[in-house]
């Protein structure tokens, strides 16, 4: 009797399995080109992976086809190698990783095509115009380190720094604020796109404000001061940083409510060997706001931004004329052997451009300098007018990159081969910053950017977190989150005297309730 039951059950399971297999086989997306209706336009896809240049080592660009249909087939092919057919009953196209890698690796420098077919309700297939992208010859650095958080105002609870493997979708926490009592994590800086030397600013009500210094890959030390914007000297012998008296305040009727002003700022530098903090008159003038240090790859020049202080009252927020502050792009020579600074010189003046010049970053080959320009102030991420510009350091000429949108573009980072630029943009919705990549060719021309690909192509549609401060590095951060947390919790190893706190001050009393209180 038992045997009979067993047989019946096994037969039922086998039959069910056969039905499922048959159903899948019959519904498989096989399309004969002769049967297709031709649609003389490209299909709408999201994210926009069309007519862009992509690195050969990037993860599959999964996307959604925004055309109504009951079945979707995408044929991905290039000049050589096997094409990839992806069939989906919903609009999400998820490309197999290995075949994608193989296709891209065999077609570096060639075009990549997406042939999109959509099956309508009546069962007929439509073929849209082929989507064409270009596979660059040059790889992008393998990892992206970024800050992940909701759009925060005064209060924060969950800020983390993650590293994403750009060759697949693996994401790993470098450090989570939740690990040290909901602490705040700020800018992370690497030496020459390598993770061996890293600086990471942290702020915690329990453990105080400090900077974590990672050296030799996994040695972590805590510096007893929180630095704001930091740049390693290419030799690794010193790190230059700005100390900013940052204030957050709020607008009423602008699309972006938040705004930031530096009431005061100056640049200092930390000498690694001697654990000394120093500054020089050239980079810390009393009547000027100096910020955003960036070294030339040869280490001979420090580029930075500088603006005159337009207010007398250094406590009022926002100060008078805050929206007239415009930063110049400056540079000053430095000799690392003798520790001598030269005289500051203006590279590009705000007077000439009519805009505030911020966030200079120089390509590792030393050829290009990319910076932001916005209407005023020191914080481009909150300025929808912020765009990326490129200056050819050989000619001194600058021009607006063709990667910009009507929303804010900022916080860019070069890959170690100087061909890729990662940057933050709010182009998707005007609110949430996402990371985009753009190819910069040898002549300094920027190509149409594409968003950091995700496994789920609808990922960004409901993502309430922002990606900020994208930094490209060649290999993953070796220091473990535990080692970093331990360092945060312990007393500082390196004590430094800092003239400014560098902490963003909450302005909860601003607004009409200030008087009521």
């Amino acid at each position: 009797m038992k045997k009979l039951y067993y047989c019946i059950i096994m037969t039922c399971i086998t039959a069910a399995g056969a039905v499922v297999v048959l159903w899948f086989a019959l519904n498989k997306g096989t399309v004969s080109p002769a049967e297709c209706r031709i649609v003389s336009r490209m299909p709408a896809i999201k994210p926009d992976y069309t007519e862009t240049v992509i690195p050969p080592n990037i993860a599959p660009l999964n996307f959604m086809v925004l055309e109504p249909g009951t079945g979707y087939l995408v044929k991905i092919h290039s000049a050589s190698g096997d094409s990839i057919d992806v069939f989906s009953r919903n609009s999400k196209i998820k490309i197999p990783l290995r075949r994608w890698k193989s296709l891209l690796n065999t077609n570096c420098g060639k075009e990549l095509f997406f042939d999109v077919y959509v099956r309508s309700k009546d069962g007929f297939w439509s073929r849209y115009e082929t989507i064409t992208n270009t596979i660059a010859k040059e790889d992008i650095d393998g990892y992206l380190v970024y800050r992940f958080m909701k759009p925060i105002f005064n209060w924060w609870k969950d800020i983390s720094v993650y590293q994403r493997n750009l060759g697949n979708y693996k994401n790993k926490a470098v450090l989570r604020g939740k690990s040290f009592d909901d602490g705040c994590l700020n800018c992370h800086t690497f030496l020459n796109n390598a993770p061996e030397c890293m600086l990471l600013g942290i702020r915690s009500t329990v453990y105080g404000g400090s900077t974590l210094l990672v050296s030799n890959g996994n040695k972590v030390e805590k510096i007893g001061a929180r630095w704001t914007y930091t740049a390693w000297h290419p030799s690794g012998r010193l790190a230059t940083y700005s100390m900013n008296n940052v204030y957050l305040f709020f607008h009423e009727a602008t699309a972006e409510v938040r705004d930031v002003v530096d009431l005061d700022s100056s640049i200092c530098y930390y000498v690694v060997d001697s654990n000394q903090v120093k500054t020089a008159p050239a980079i810390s003038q009393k009547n000027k706001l100096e910020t955003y240090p960036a070294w030339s790859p040869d280490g001979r020049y420090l580029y930075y931004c500088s603006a005159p202080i337009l207010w007398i009252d250094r406590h009022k927020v926002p100060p008078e004329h805050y929206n007239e502050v415009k930063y110049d792009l400056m540079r000053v020579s430095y000799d690392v052997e003798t520790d001598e600074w030269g005289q500051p010189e203006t590279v590009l003046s705000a007077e000439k451009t009519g805009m505030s010049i911020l966030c200079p970053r120089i390509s590792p080959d030393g050829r290009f300098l990319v910076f932001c320009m916005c209407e005023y102030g020191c914080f481009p991420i909150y300025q929808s007018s912020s765009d990326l510009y490129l200056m050819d350091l050989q000619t001194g000429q600058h021009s607006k990159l063709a990667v910009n949108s009507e929303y804010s573009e900022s916080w860019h980072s070069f890959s170690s081969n100087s061909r890729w630029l990662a940057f933050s943009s709010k182009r998707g919705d005007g609110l949430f910053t996402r990371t985009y990549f753009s190819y910069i060719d040898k002549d300094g021309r920027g190509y149409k950017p594409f968003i950091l690909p995700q496994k789920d192509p609808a990922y960004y549609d409901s993502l309430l977190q922002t990606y900020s401060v994208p930094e490209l590095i060649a290999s993953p951060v070796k220091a473990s989150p535990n080692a970093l947390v331990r360092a945060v919790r312990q007393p500082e190893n390196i004590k430094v005297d800092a003239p400014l706190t560098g902490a963003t001050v909450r302005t909860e009393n601003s607004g009409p309730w200030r008087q009521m209180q």
Partner: protein
Amino acid sequence: MIAMLPNHEISLPNQNVPVRRGATASQWAGFILFFLSVYLYVWLFIKPSLIYHGFGIFLAYPAFSLGWGFLNSSLSYPGGLVEYIGGFLSQLYYFSWLGALVITAAACLIYIETSILIRLSAGRALKLIGYIPAVMLLMICNHYDNQLTAFLALLVALWFSVVYEKMAVRRSVACAVVFMVMFAMLYYIAGGASFVFVSLVSIYELFVGRRKVLAVLFPAAVIGTYLVGRYVFDLEIEIIHLRFLGTRLGYDLWVRNIVICVYLFFPLALFGIGLRQGLAGKKSSVCGAEKDSGGSSLKAGKLRQLFQDSKGGLIVEAGLPIIILLASILVSFDGTKKKLIQVDYFAHQKMWPEVLRTARRIRSESCDLCCIHNIDRALYYTGRLGDEMFRYPQMVPALMLTGMATGHPVGVFTERGLLFLELGYLGNAERDAFEYMELVGSTPLILEQLATIKLAKGQLEAAKVFLNALSKDLIFGNRAREMLRRIEQDPELADDERIQYIRSVASDKESVNLGVDDFFHQLLDKNSNNKLAFEYMMAFYLLTKQVDKVVANIGGFNDLGYKKLPRYYEEAIMLYMAHGGPRTDLHGWMPRLETIERARAAGRIYQLCGGRYNEKEIRGALTSDLADSYFLYHAFHVLGERK
């Protein structure tokens, strides 16, 4: 499962206890009566929909979202699975009948598990003890709190304990292996609640299994987990051990203590039983069998006789649980909290008369700022702000929930954001909404609010992100999808009255850090028909006793088409005149005769008191029609309802 229900002592190993059919019926009656009462009480009186409303405002928000993403993230940490299920079941509170079913089922399961565990440890059933943790769950509901996740974690831990004890593995090594496997599984499923399992099986091994080595070794797992969590994963102790006890608790100390008591109840109860059994065993071995059947067993026999007697058994076993239930309600029901949540609930539902009706039942000293804030909104929307606001408790910060972001329940951010949204002050509405989202989480309420703000600002793509996130909500998902569909059809949302209204009043003049006067005037400059802004401005002047500004803006009532000047503004005019304010244009408004009479009466009291607070005189005034007048508020800061 049915076999585990109240008559489970039928299968007792103690063969001396006779099978009692009559007693079983009374236990069944008690069981059914108790849980039916619990269900009806929770459904009709507690109303879980009020607890649902309190999520993220009065209580911690039990996060839950449809889709694999949220499930995957929940499965990535110990206790995440229980948290996921707890979050899901908590969503069902939206429907009171369903929420009551969830709570009753949890109470019922905990009763059954308690009974089984006690039977396994004591060798006999002590049924009434089983009702204690169930009642504790009810006591938490009586405080309008939600600790479902903590209880679910406990339920799983108890279930694992039952399984372990039922398995009755004989060899110690096998037992240790079984324990380690079960503990690891449980720690992953239920987080910190797994330590209840550790304590229960240790007690079991100590007293029933008589394997002292295991009883000592098992708690070492706790230390092991701590060491691994602390030194390998660098976790905080709270995260390692107290995931549900420490982090999920709300603001209520009472509730926190109840949860801790429930968690401690099982180890303590079973330890007590084990100790008693152990002592009884020793005693019997020393004194011999004759003494065992002496005095104490005579008393026990009488007690058993009472239970076995069908009438007595029915009364005791069916009545006692109900008495326990009633006693727990008497001890723990928090009527004030219920009313405060009701006020907020009605305000969110725009049921303004109900807001005021409920608020009248709350003692003024129990009214918190949010409650007063909602009262003022209800008064405005029922057209009674200028006539009745001083009949209710008032505080200046409550009008716009100002200057209180620190040290106050974060629910304030939603309430204030909602008011700013209605006023047309979108920048601050957005700021409050984001502050709330960071601190509390992506609650459906805040996602909808942010989507509305973004739609009103014309930032459709940003609004879609919030609506897409909201579409994953179990309760409000449909509403979000419907809104997304409407946006696709009509991006301008021309038919959406609310959005159009907000756009019509929203300030488009750029400003930073406005003072109160500028704030209101900017809104009125944008749209002089912004009645809410005007009335709140005037209410603010009344509250801050700036009668000169009330008089200076009195012309606004003409612009807004008021047929009658609200009472408090007439009284403010009288005060202005009494204080010898310079002559000013009253735009045709003159205080009515009865207002003048009231002013005279108030003046007399003021003189009698010599301008100072005088309890006797003020109490007298409160019995007259001056009770809820602006005069008393202005002079003595006294509020009250006219008798």
